[in-house]
Structures are given as structure tokens and as C-alpha cells.
């Protein structure tokens, strides 16, 4: 991609756009939230958020998973309604009941997930639902022309005639942004825009965000990556467990400051102390694991008493690797447990052999949300409750009471459905469910996704306790802080292979990020291979 050539042309474009768009002065308040709160039943997910979003400012919202960031965004962009409080747009109080009303008021959300129709072309997607017409007939030519212009503005030179299916993931995101920029919006909200991007693509996106700012638009930027926030943000608002901790000038916070504000305590206190590194016995040895399309020839060893982390970008093949190993996906691998070779063809065989896998998607793949707690707990270990002809429900209830005690699952009643528990308690139930099968190797995929800080700390303690009992634990996580804080050693995957290993003092975000995005030998990302 020879950006050097086209850059000047774009800058000229931008100049023209800038001159066109000087109606709003920098610093004017575009949107103000007043005591914005959201409750679902008795659960408060967001309370009393009051922030100002100004023109020509990049306002970052940071917080842990479950802190309420996405709820706040969806409130501002009209996807959900506040329980208490409201929005003031251009000095007028407003209520949005649909995203369309928010868009009419100049507020647009660029979704984290790519929401495009894959079977349509880029231009058709850009104008989906608001096609240009001439004499009542769809005006394809005009739409293609405008699509090209808008994409070029973003520094993206894909053809508007391409099917979205054939467009690379990073470019699809630009299509989505272009779609958001088709109208004259005042406030653009980005939800984790860089989560699926690699080095160069991230740079391109940050550049776009800065251009929007230069156009005196307001930008609300939600990201996990604190380095980006530090580079971009004029203001940073920190959320924790649905509450607003404060709004700070962007330049005044170091990344460490931000992390500690998000967590609400010193980071070191969140994670249990690591046990001393010493020579450990190999427990799970995987050689040449291959999952067609995802994982290519991966070998590693997890040791007794060790928490082994797996880092990598979304799509690096971490989940697929382990789903392949435990028989949930077609693939092959040579697996040894405590020196004995295993032939695992199904999840059942993995469980029986002593390998437990806890899915990252607890709602869709982990728990039966419409079912009571006890049947959920015992589903992987029914044999233990079925000594003769039938299941002993009393034993199941006893197991549930034990699990509730042991893993501190907070429930009003033992007769709830799993779906009625909070995310943290669901996760603890899922952990209890896997541990009921008495595995010697526990693989946990995203152990704390979407749960609050108190539950996180507890889960970390449970994991540390498990390895203390002589198990091996493998933790897959997209949160680098979590891996660094929890694990004894981290393997970093990239494009279906293990790209490197870090341990001890080398476990830093920058080392991991480098291994996750750049080829190990050259140290330089080249994304030429994507098609």
C-alpha cells in the first residue's frame, strides 16, 4: 500500500472539507449527559453519569469489561433508553427512542462488530436504507461515485463495486466508518475500533479519528488499549462498576494511572501472588496441533502448578487451538498428559481424560440459561449422580450447595435459572461445573469477560488455588493486563502459530503486543498476505 503517494492528495481533500465545515466552534458542548442511569430490574448497570462531549475534542471512555462503557454509548446513541437522567444536545434536552432519532440529531455509533451485508457491494452497503434515487430509480452511478470519494477521504482505496465478502476485515471497518460519515454528523462514537486491527491498520484508524477532530466533530472513543487513549484523548472519563470515577485531562494520566483508576485499587492487589518459579513437571504436552483454517503446527507444554497464558489478537487462533485439542473442532494434535499419550476425538473423551475446557462464550456455549442451577452444574458430570438407573436429585442439590459455598456464588435462591445470575456468578458456576469433572488440566478461555472487579479478583484467586493443588491451568485472554498479572508464563499467538514466549520481567504489554502483531524474525508487520 503506497500511502506516501496518496497522502498529499487526501490532505488537499481534507483542507476543502475543513473549510466547508466551520459552523461549529471547537469547544462548544455538543452533547451533555445529565445523571444518566440505567437499571435492568433491580440491577443498576450505570448510575449518575454526567459528562460533556465537546466539538473538536476526542473524549475517551475507559473502564474494565462490565464497567458500563457500552451501556453509556448505547444510551447516547439511542439504542436504549435511560432509566433516570437524560441528554442535552445543543443546549436542548432530548429523548431518543431509536438510533434514527439520535442520527437525526447528529450522533452516530460505529459498531464494534462489523454490521455489513456481505453479499452486497461496498457502495450498496454504504447507502443501505437510504439509497439515492433519480426519477424513482436507484441511482447506482451517483452512489458509486460518492462511495469512492468517501472511502478516499478515509485513505482507503478499495473499489465501491467489490462485494463486502471479498473485502479485508480492516477495510470493512473503514466501510463502516464511511457509512457513518455519509451524513454530517456532529458526534461520532467509536466502540473498540482497533480490536481487530493490526499495527499499520491501527495507525490508519487513529489518523482518521484525528481528522474527524480536525473537522471540529466530537469523538467519543471507547478502547481497551490505553496507549491509544493516551495518544488520542483530550479528555478521559473513567467508569468502574457502572459508576463514574471522574473525567481527567488526557495528557495528565499515565497508562498506569488509567489502569489503576479503572481497577480502583493498586494493580498488584488484584492478582494473587505468584508462586516462585522453579523447575516443574510437564503435565500437558501438545505437539503439532493443527486446526485447518485456524491453527498451524502449534506445540507447547503446560506444567504442573503453572498458570500458562495465551495472548494474541482476535482471530489469532487461540480458542480454535484449544477447541481442536479437546475435540470440539476437527483437527489433529499429539497430546500427552503426564507422559501418557491421549487420543481425544470428542469433548467427552477430553473430560474423561482430565482436560477441562471452559468456553469464552458462557451464555451461548457454557450454560443453559433457561435451566435451573443444579442441572447446569452437573451437566458435564452426570455419571457421578447416576449410580444406578436414575439421577439422584438430592445429590445434585448437595453438589450445588457445596459449589455455592466453595466458589462464593451469590444467589437469592438455589432454584433460580442460570440466566438470572449476574455475569460474575454465571462465570463462577461455569467454573464449578468444569471442576466437578475433576480435571487435572483446566483451560479457561476469557476467564473474566464482562464481569465486575470483585468477581474478577475472586476468580483469579480460584485459578491460583487450582494450580496450588497440583493442576495445570491455561488461561486465554484478550486483556493483556490480566495475563501479565495472573500468569507465570505467556505464549503469544499470531495467525495460527505461536509467535513467541514471555515470562518474568519480559511480561509487558509492549512485548506482548509486538509478538501479537509482528512476525517474530523480522519484527515488522507486513499484512501483504491478506486477501
Amino acid at each position, binding site marked *: 500500500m503506497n500511502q506516501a503517494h496518496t497522502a498529499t492528495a487526501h490532505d488537499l481533500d481534507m483542507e476543502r472539507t475543513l473549510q466547508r465545515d466551520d459552523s461549529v466552534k471547537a469547544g462548544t458542548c455538543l452533547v451533555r449527559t445529565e445523571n444518566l442511569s440505567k437499571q435492568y430490574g*433491580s440491577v443498576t448497570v450505570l448510575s449518575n453519569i454526567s459528562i460533556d462531549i465537546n466539538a473538536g475534542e476526542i473524549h475517551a471512555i475507559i473502564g474494565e469489561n462490565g464497567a458500563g462503557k457500552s451501556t453509556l454509548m448505547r444510551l447516547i446513541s439511542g439504542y436504549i433508553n435511560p432509566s433516570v437522567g437524560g441528554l442535552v444536545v445543543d443546549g436542548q434536552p432530548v429523548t431518543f427512542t431509536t438510533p434514527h432519532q439520535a442520527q437525526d440529531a447528529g450522533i452516530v455509533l460505529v459498531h464494534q462488530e462489523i454490521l455489513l451485508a456481505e453479499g452486497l457491494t461496498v457502495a450498496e452497503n454504504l447507502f443501505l436504507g437510504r439509497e439515492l434515487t433519480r426519477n424513482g430509480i436507484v441511482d447506482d452511478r451517483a452512489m458509486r461515485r460518492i462511495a469512492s470519494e468517501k472511502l478516499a477521504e478515509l485513505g482507503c482505496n478499495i473499489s465501491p463495486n467489490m462485494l463486502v465478502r471479498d473485502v479485508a476485515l480492516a477495510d470493512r471497518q473503514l466501510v463502516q466508518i464511511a457509512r457513518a460519515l455519509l451524513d454530517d454528523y456532529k458526534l461520532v462514537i467509536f466502540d473498540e475500533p482497533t480490536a481487530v486491527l493490526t499495527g499499520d491498520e491501527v495507525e490508519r484508524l487513529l489518523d482518521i479519528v484525528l481528522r474527524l477532530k480536525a473537522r471540529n466533530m466530537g469523538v467519543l472513543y471507547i478502547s481497551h488499549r490505553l496507549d491509544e487513549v493516551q495518544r488520542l484523548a483530550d479528555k478521559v472519563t473513567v467508569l468502574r*462498576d457502572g459508576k463514574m470515577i471522574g473525567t481527567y485531562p488526557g495528557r495528565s494520566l499515565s497508562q498506569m494511572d488509567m489502569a489503576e483508576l479503572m481497577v480502583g485499587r493498586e494493580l498488584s492487589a488484584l492478582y494473587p501472588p505468584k508462586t516462585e518459579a522453579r523447575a516443574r513437571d510437564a503435565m500437558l504436552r501438545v505437539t503439532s496441533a493443527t486446526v485447518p483454517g485456524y491453527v498451524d503446527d502449534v506445540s507447547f507444554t503446560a506444567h504442573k502448578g503453572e498458570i500458562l497464558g495465551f495472548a494474541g489478537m482476535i482471530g489469532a487462533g487461540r480458542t480454535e487451538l484449544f477447541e481442536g485439542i479437546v475435540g*470440539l473442532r476437527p483437527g489433529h494434535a499429539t497430546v500427552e498428559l503426564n507422559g501418557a499419550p491421549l487420543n481425544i476425538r*470428542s*469433548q*467427552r473423551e*477430553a*473430560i*474423561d481424560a482430565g482436560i477441562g*475446557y471452559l*468456553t469464552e*462464550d458462557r451464555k*451461548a*456455549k*457454557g*450454560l*443453559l*440459561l*433457561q*435451566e435451573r442451577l443444579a*442441572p447446569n452444574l452437573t*451437566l*458435564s458430570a*452426570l*455419571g457421578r449422580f*447416576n449410580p444406578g*438407573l*436414575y*439421577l439422584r436429585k438430592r445429590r445434585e*442439590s448437595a453438589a450445588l*450447595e457445596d459449589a*455455592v*459455598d466453595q466458589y*462464593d456464588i*451469590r*444467589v*437469592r*435462591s*438455589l*432454584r433460580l435459572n442460570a440466566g438470572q445470575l*449476574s455475569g460474575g456468578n454465571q462465570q463462577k458456576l461455569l467454573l464449578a*461445573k468444569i471442576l466437578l*469433572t475433576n480435571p487435572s488440566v483446566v483451560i479457561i478461555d476469557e476467564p473474566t469477560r464482562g464481569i*465486575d472487579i*470483585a468477581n474478577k479478583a475472586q476468580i483469579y484467586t480460584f485459578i491460583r488455588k487450582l494450580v496450588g493443588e497440583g493442576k495445570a491451568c491455561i488461561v486465554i485472554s484478550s486483556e493483556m493486563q490480566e495475563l501479565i498479572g495472573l500468569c507465570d508464563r505467556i505464549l503469544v499467538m499470531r495467525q495460527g502459530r505461536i509467535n513467541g514466549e514471555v515470562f518474568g520481567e519480559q511480561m509487558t504489554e509492549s512485548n506482548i503486543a509486538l509478538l501479537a502483531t509482528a512476525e517474530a524474525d523480522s519484527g515488522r508487520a507486513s499484512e501483504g498476505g491478506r486477501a
Partner: protein
Amino acid sequence: MSVVSQPARLGRERDFSFNWADAGPFLALLALLVIGFLVNPDFLSPTNLSNVITRSAFIAIIAVGATFVISSGGLDLSVGSMAAFITGITIMFMNMMAPSMGTWSIPAGMGIALLAGIACGLVNGIIVTVGKIEPFIATLGTMGIFRALITYMSDGGTIPIDRSLREAYRPVYFGTVAGIPLPIIISLAVAAIASFVLYKTKYGRKCAAAGANEDVARYSGISIVRTRTIAYVIQGACVAIAAICYVPRLGAATPTTGVLWELQVITAVVIGGTALRGGKGHIWGTVAGAVILELIANLMVLSDFVSEYLVAAVQGVIIIIAMLIQRFSK
């Protein structure tokens, strides 16, 4: 957040809670009986009721099997033609054996019927699970196959049971124990065994899990292939039991035996409270559903409000209403 609930040990709670959704089919049944009595007092006469419930026995027995299939996330459209096919095989086998075995050919024929039912169910199950074909399409295919086979076997006419067996076989449909017709006792027994299997055994738990969320079941180490295939086998066995009871009623198998039973069976399951997309199955609700269908037909015959030619239309309306109730009672 943390003050809302206490980690204190929770006492044992009573294992009973009234649930309108579970009670629905029985309340509907009760309401129907009251309406029936108001329309025509003869409706509640023991003779009429026992006739109606006896007639509903075939659908009830097959629908109990269908509760397993639907609970596990499948569907079986082939039950009606399967019933006809098994009836044909059974009668042909009994007739063939009658000269040598005498009345012993009847229990032997029943055994053949069960084997044939299990085999038919296994075929359906394997096409759906191993072949990974949509249950709707797979059983639509076997529905045609079974129907064609009975037509071929009967040469488009009827396969009557041998005269020498007729008297001996009669009681299976027309007989009573303590005044209760045998088909009612058989269907109650089938439902009792089925509810033990579905609610008290490992298999029942796996079945409901596979239907409620296939992924969760798979990630919990449950074999979807085995679980669903067994459900189809249970369905096949239930169809065979229904066929065994059906033979003495008409004494013959014809190409029109069991036509549209699959619709009545699915209706019974759905108005019984089992969700068509799978999950928890309601065996006794299904039985109530089968009785409701037959009661409505009977009521229409006994009353003069609606032509009895419209029975199928009324049943169609009922299945739609039942689905709407399931949809909106969430």
C-alpha cells in the same frame, strides 16, 4: 452490588411451585370438559368419555415419542406413514405365521412390530444426525418412502388380518381391565415410563440439554448424534406400540392408515407445552394434548354448531393459538 445478597447458606426450599405454563394443558382439558357438558350432557357420560380417550390413545402414544424427538431439538414428520408401514408388516407377518404358530403368531408379530419401529426410528435418526440433514427434510423423505411401501405392499388395496387371529387379537383394542379400556392403560404405561426416562435419567437430561442449546450440550461432553438418534429410536418404538394397538381396531392396513397423524401428533406435543424448538419436554402435557384434540372432534360431532368436516380446521386453529401462547407468555 455486594450488599444485595448474602453468601449465607440457603435453606432447603420447597420443591413445589405452581407454574401456569405447565398447568395450561390440564386447565384447557378441564375447561373443555365443562364446555362439553354444557353443550351436551351426554358428553360426560362414561361411555362417551372412555370411547373418546380410547380413540386418542394412538396419537397419545406416538406423541409421547415425539416429545423426546422435539425435546432433543428434532422433528419427525414420518410417524403417520411409519405407523401404516409397521401395521402392514405386522399383519403380513402374523398372517404368514398363523398356519404354523396359531395364535402365538400374535405376540411374535408384536415383537416384529417393535423391531420394525426401532429400525425405522434408527434410519430417521441416522439420516438426521450422521447425515446432518434438516429433520424436516429428512423425515419428509422417509414419510414418502414409508407411505409408498405400504401402498406397494397392499397393492393399493387393504391387507386384512387372518380370520383365525381376529378373535384372539380383538381384546388388545376392545378389551378392558377393571373397566378401563386396554389402549388407555397402555398409553398411561407408556407415558409413565417415558416420564421416568425423560425426568429421572441421565439420558433425559441429555435430551433436554441437546434441544435447549446444542452448543452447551456439546461443550458439556454430550454426544448430540447419540442423544438425538436415541430419541428417534424411542419415537419408532412408540409408533410400533401404537400400531400394535391399532391393528385390531380396523383389522387391516390400508394406504390411508395414519394419514395426517403427524400433524395431530405435533399439535398434541405443542399444546402440551413442549417448545417446538426443543428443550424441556412435557410428557403428561402431551397426553393431555392428544385427549384435547380428540375431545374437540367429539364435541363437534355431538354439537350442531360447527360441521364436523371442519374438525381439521379447528385443530389447525388450536395449534396456532398454542404457539402464540408460547410466544407471548415469556
